[in-house]
């Protein structure tokens, strides 16, 4: 088994499309999915690095596993459904807490999926954002006015940085880390993952250079590395 160099975790309520996004990116298709049980992961080779991408289960039952999956994550993708405002609220209420175990410099991306189902806002009807969803004529009738605006996601992003006490100037801008995607049409999916890979890769190399002996430290009892959970009690 190849050992991954870095980890990216997808979090979000059930049914928002985490599994679909990952399959769209990795397998270039949009198959029928079943609600994820437990979790699954893919290995993606990016440049010379192996990045593991974990798909987690949104179901309440598996909520407790999230912390462990997030441990040591270099980036977390918080996913919601643009047509369900509740799914965005859940990110803050339920899922943000799971990311405590992630790396200190963990990146956050906020992804509103299923934009293909949403009508463009009347005020910005002419924007090109909608091009991916506009193709299938039959879909038009089923479209509903979108429920969550990009600004809402960006507000959450800033809130997260504040909450994590991360310096907003050192982190990527909200505009860059908030995406609207469609796993169905593929809209913005590559952009999402590849933006993250490109941000994560330098972090991995930096880590390698800084702490080459980290693994040894844990095993040899003499010089324990203080973990986050250890120092916050």
């Amino acid at each position: 088994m190849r050992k991954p160099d870095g980890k990216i975790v997808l979090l979000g309520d059930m049914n928002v499309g985490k599994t679909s996004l990952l399959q769209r990116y990795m397998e270039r298709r949009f198959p029928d999915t079943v609600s994820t049980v437990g979790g699954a992961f893919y290995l993606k080779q990016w440049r010379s690095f192996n990045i593991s991408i974990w798909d987690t289960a949104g179901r309440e039952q598996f909520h407790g596993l999230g912390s462990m999956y997030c441990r040591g994550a270099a980036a977390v993708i918080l996913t919601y459904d643009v047509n369900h405002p509740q799914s965005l609220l859940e990110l803050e209420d339920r899922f943000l807490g799971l990311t405590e175990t992630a790396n200190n410099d963990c990146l956050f991306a906020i992804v509103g999926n299923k934009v293909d189902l949403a009508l463009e806002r009347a005020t910005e009807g002419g924007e090109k954002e909608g091009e991916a969803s506009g193709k299938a004529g039959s879909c038009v009738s089923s479209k509903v006015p979108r429920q969550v605006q990009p600004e809402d996601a960006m507000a959450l992003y800033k809130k997260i940085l504040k909450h994590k006490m991360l310096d907003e100037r050192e982190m990527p801008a909200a505009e860059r880390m908030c995406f609207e995607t469609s796993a169905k049409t593929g809209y913005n999916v590559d952009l999402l993952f590849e933006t993250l890979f490109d941000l994560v890769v330098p972090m991995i190399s930096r880590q390698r250079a800084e702490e080459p002996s980290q693994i040894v430290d844990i095993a040899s009892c003499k010089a324990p590395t203080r973990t986050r959970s250890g120092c916050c009690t």
Partner: protein
Amino acid sequence: MDHPVDMMNIKAFTLVSAVERELLTGDKEHISIECVECCGRNLYVGTNDCFIYHFLLEEKAMPTGTTSFTATKQLHRHLGFKKPVNELCAASALNRLLVLCDNSITLVNMLNLEPVPSGARIKGATTFAVNENPVNGDPFCVEVCIISVKRRTVQMFLVYEDRVQIVKEVSTPEQPLAVAVDGYFLCLALTTQYIILNYSTGLSQDLFPYCSEEKPPIVKRIGRQEFLLAGPGGLGMFATVAGISQRAPVHWSENVIGAAVCFPYVIALDDEFITVHSMLDQQQKQTLPFKEGHILQDFEGRVIVATSKGVYILVPLPLEKQIQDLLASRRVEEALVLAKGARRNIPKEKFQVMYRRILQQAGFIQFAQLQFLEAKELFRSSQLDVRELISLYPFLLPTSSSFTRCHPPLHEYADLNQLTQGDQEKMAKCKRFLMSYLNEVRSTEVANGYKEDIDTALLKLYAEADHDSLLDLLVTENFCLLTDSAAWLEKHKKYFALGLLYHYNKQDASAVQLWVNIVNGDIQDSTRSDLYEYIVDFLTYCLDQELVWAHADWLLQKSEEIGVQVFTKRPLDEQQQTSFNPDDIIRCLKKYPKALVKYLEHLVIDRRLQKEEYHTHLATLYLEEVLRQRVATDSKDIEATETQVKLRRLLQKSDSYRVHLLKEKIQDAGLPMESAILHGKLGEHEKALHILVHEMGDFSAAEDYCLWGSEGQDTACRQHLFHTLLAMYLRAGPSAHELTVAAVDLLNHHAREFDATQVLQLLPDTWSVQLLCPFLTGAMRDSIHARRTTQVALGLAKSENLIYMYDKMKLKGSAVRLSEKKLCQLCQNPFGEPVFVRYPNGGLVHTHCAASRHTTPSSPSPGTRT
């Protein structure tokens, strides 16, 4: 990611009975099995009535390919309590069995089951686990972690042959229920969650929450630094000592009671089934119905399940067999995952052979499903003997090939017809694939040893498909077998290609004959529309003279101009050494006048041969042509024809033809220009110019004549010609106005070609200075220029002279003293008289010595004596 269970099934294990009911409990209903331990051939069973049984297991391979076990009872012993035996664990290095009964761990002898005399024991334990990755280096000591009867406490012990020693006690945040150990790390199931606890540092890390009240937790070490845990919703979760998950979870049923690992499988037990999941792809692979099981454990790779009454063994099928089964049901990906996973369980050499074969089999499965990309990758990575693939295609392997398919076969297909079931479209796809594949591998090392087979097959495919690469194949290095390929090309009417094949096999005569037949229309092949030119080109570079001669007539009959190129365009270096005799060629070309002219032009103009015959012959041919054209057009067209231009140029430039002969032929032919040239050649300039000026009135031709007629000669000659022409113009007197103008023009245009003083004397006095202004300025400038250059030359000569004088003075400057001691530098004798020769370097010699010595005086170096 979940797949329908029945589709994914594989037979990974068979369940066989190990200990018959009669051997244990017999028909005593109240007695039940509480725990088992297996160590090598020793099997121990603990019961609820406080007995330990010891059996020896004997493994027998059955002819059906399965294994059976028989257990023979060695001994059983009552421990002396009224409590069940809860847990057993063997420490073979100590020859001890650790027995947990009535909250205390006692040590008994592995063979006779007697308690150790020291009575050493660990008290107050509810459960325990042995560290299989011990941190203490002593081989005669095992590390044991117990969950204490004290609340929220775990303790670490070192257990020796006959004593125990506590090492550490750690308290836990909640009551622990199950434990597994790896190094310093404890993986603990607490009441509401799993944690990793480093007992050395006391640091802990939460894994995930789990409600142990609903379902009993499972904690199982599965390998270095990794544990398997029962998770929510029937998940089997993997976690490392670092608190992270490196494998996706497997999905069990909600009510698992035990789990074990037998690489690469995770086995789980619930009240109805034993399920088998692969750790490699997390999929469920096998389900075995098994009722009332309550123990599932693995012991060094041996998996044991037990009900309360009987003990069974899960015998793994050999991995190779499993893989073959998967391949047989076309589950390529799974087979490959399993094969790769088996790498560390099989010796390297054996593995490589096996793995290669599996890749090849997988390749053929993909191939049969027309998954060519995948197939190609598999063939490539497994270095498939390409002939295995070629042999699927009827008639592609050469008849002489010694190839036989490997045994056992890599696939089940007789040939492509069977594989595609006659579907033409599929067949074509397969052929296209083979084409690209062979083309890729033919230059790699995969092809070594059977390049003939590959190239011949490729040729056949190309020919059949009318593929352009056929020609590329044949004109570059290839190993196509002649007889096989030739027959095939003929069958597919690829005659041009067949010619190339012959040529490649050094049978140029056959090649050319075949192509000639195509051009003649005797056989049909439209590969090249310019085949005639191709043949000409081919023969031009062909070293075989006989072959060229054999086809020369045919070539020339087709086209004299192009055909003659076989003689005119031959590479030069070749012409030197081989003896294509020009006279032979000329003889051959007699029948082809146009070709002959071209050939003579080639000799005379391109190769500049100075042989008189060629020049005269060519001039004569030109002349005849000119005369013929004259007759044809029947007019005194003044415009010179192309041939006429060529004739004139030859007459002017060449000095090798027989002038008189041509003069004779030209007489009365009305070719004044040509006769002028011939006069010129004979040095009869006056006559020549006369014709030009007076017969033809062509003044510019006359000027030209002066120029080319003196080409390569000295200026005097040129001046002479110009003066002659000028004189001719002036002689006519002022009445011939035209000539006067010509004279003025001549002077003004060619001022430099005249001697001005002579000219001035010739000119009539009436001419104005204005009229001759250009001439006069030119003449002046010339004369001034001449004067100045002469002055410079004079100056330079003077200074050179001075330098020599200086040298001379220097040499003469000092007196030479001649005494008896001075010897001649050449003969080494003294000087007898006051006469000597002195060299510039100061050496003195006899006059007669100097005379007899012509070489430089420095050679018998005068310096050697001094």
